[in-house]
């Protein structure tokens, strides 16, 4: 009952000041949830096997049998787009997980320890940060898969790692900055006074209070990962041509546009746009939302 009143008041308080960031957050969340559902339920949503050729006549325009039409090999574009969500989200999740797992501890340690260690790590991170992300990802992807003969999953993994390397500095910088301010708190001094060793201070007292600002970055990382993965596939060093992937499909399909066949590249392109938009919106809204300086309805 009490929680019911809380929620009632919560919505009452917020319905009065429905802000822009709140609308952004809602749109983003709806889109992102839809994407995740599509990825999980792909076999049930897609009407055809995405890699089976000549399901329909090549270059069939959108029609009731083939909602998004078919491509040069007669594959169903709609099914390919649906299945493509899987590889896109996989790259996004894996890259974010990697970048998170490396960038955050590094930021925490660097911020807490300070001194020469901090300076060296910050310098390396700044250098990484300054590098154009696609070029960097390109170099790493080529380095990890020189022959271009790896399995599909290892290609996805390589792409994800390449993108995560680019993203580590983003996590690092934010976490290092908040660590610097969090470690000035009295409770950190109190932890030292009760005899907590440094690793415990970082783990129990600083980390839980410093990771919040990294959450918007995860979403930005997601968005960028989808875009970069598509870019890599587009350049031909991502996934193999038969594999259902938005980047692959755009790169194959855009050559057809002069012949009036717009659907083979438009729909996967639209998905890239929507997926990127979803996570960008969430990220932007969260930045506003988690901004501690903004007073939120306190007496």
């Amino acid at each position, binding site marked *: 009952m009490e929680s019911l009143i809380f929620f009632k008041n919560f919505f009452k308080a917020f319905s009065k000041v429905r802000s822009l960031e709140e609308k952004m957050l809602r749109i983003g969340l709806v889109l992102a949830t839809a994407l995740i559902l599509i990825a999980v339920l792909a076999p049930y949503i897609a009407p055809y096997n995405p890699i089976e050729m000549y399901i329909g006549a090549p270059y069939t325009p959108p029609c009731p049998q083939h909602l998004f039409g078919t491509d040069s090999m007669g594959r169903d574009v709609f099914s390919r787009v649906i299945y493509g969500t899987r590889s896109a989200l996989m790259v996004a999740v894996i890259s974010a997980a990697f970048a998170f797992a490396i960038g955050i501890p590094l930021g925490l340690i660097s911020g807490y320890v300070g001194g020469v260690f901090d300076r060296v790590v910050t310098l390396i991170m700044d250098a990484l940060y300054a590098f154009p992300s696609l070029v960097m990802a390109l170099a790493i992807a080529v380095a990890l898969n020189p022959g271009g003969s790896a399995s599909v999953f290892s290609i996805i993994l390589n792409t994800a790692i390449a993108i995560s390397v680019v993203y580590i500095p983003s996590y690092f910088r934010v976490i290092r900055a908040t660590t610097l301010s969090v470690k000035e708190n009295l409770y950190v*001094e109190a932890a030292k006074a009760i005899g907590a060793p440094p690793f415990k201070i970082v783990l129990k007292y600083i980390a839980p209070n410093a990771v919040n600002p990294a959450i918007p970055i995860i979403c930005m990382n997601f968005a960028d990962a989808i875009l970069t993965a598509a870019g890599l596939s587009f350049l031909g060093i991502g996934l193999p041509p038969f594999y259902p992937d938005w980047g692959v499909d755009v790169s194959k399909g855009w050559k057809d546009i002069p012949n009036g066949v717009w659907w083979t590249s438009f729909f996967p392109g639209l998905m890239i746009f929507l997926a990127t938009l979803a996570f960008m919106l969430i990220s932007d809204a969260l930045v506003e939302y988690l901004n501690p300086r903004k007073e939120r309805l306190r007496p």
Partner: protein
Amino acid sequence: MSVILSVENLKKYFPVEQTFLDRLLGKRKEYVKAVDGVSFEIKRGETLALVGESGCGKTTTGRLVVRLLKPTGGKIVFDGIDITFTKESELRKWFRRKAQIIFQDPYASLNPKMKIGEAIEDPLLIHFGDKLSKKERKEEVLKIMSKVGLVPPEYFYDRYPHELSGGQRQRAVIARALVLRPEFIVADEPTSSLDVSIRAQILKLLQTLKEEFKLTFLFITHDLATAYYIADRIAVMYLGRIVEVGDAKKVILNPAHIYTRALFSAVPLPDPKLNRSRSKIKIRSEPPNPINIPSGCRFHPRCPYAEERCRRQNPPLIKIDEKHFTACWLYS
């Protein structure tokens, strides 16, 4: 009574951040002399109040004696062992169990992401994690929570700091400091950020706990009345030095140093008639910057009785009687 803490000529200088331009121009590195030659002793079971205005170095002194800061010079001897420059890893082995600190701001001294019970349990986990079982630790935590007045302890055990009022948080902070059964506690303005009606509760609680756990306190405060209430002895600090020290009654009722007297007459009393009738020593200026400390007696630029000697020579602590000392040439 044996001496638990003795401090000799303690110094702490903080370097002033230099800008790149300053360094380029070869400007001399400047220091804030927060603590500049402080000496005192605390006997076991005693409460020494360190009184002074902001910037006088009282808080820095408190952090130095529990070694949250590294001294620039001097000597700190705790329980017969010199801890002045002891490494943190060594301090963790025994000192952190015996000496604790309570901060002014109970809102900032608790980790917002830790439940009250966890926060109080953490010292036990750190020092006796392998000796005490989880159940034993929880029992110990609940016991100390009821001792500090967080009752019922089972209720407060699972609360987060933001669910507690300022007074309750300060009780939790006290519990965390006491759970290891320390011998010595630095209380840095533990009541000044609390509501008036809560201050008395916390002051009385500290008194009771002192008796029960046989504690020794270094009580830092800017409030003379609080110092008078809680302390056996009072040391008055001004610009990094102790200017007067002695029996609480003597220092408060017969202040010797001109600064102490001025401080005294500036304190408003909760009594309108007394406020109007008492005579005052008024100081018109504000304390000087601790980067450029005046020569001679540090107080001389503000002292209405300053003489030539005060400008040149720094007065040592001069004995007024057995239990009362002051650093003022007027008493030589």
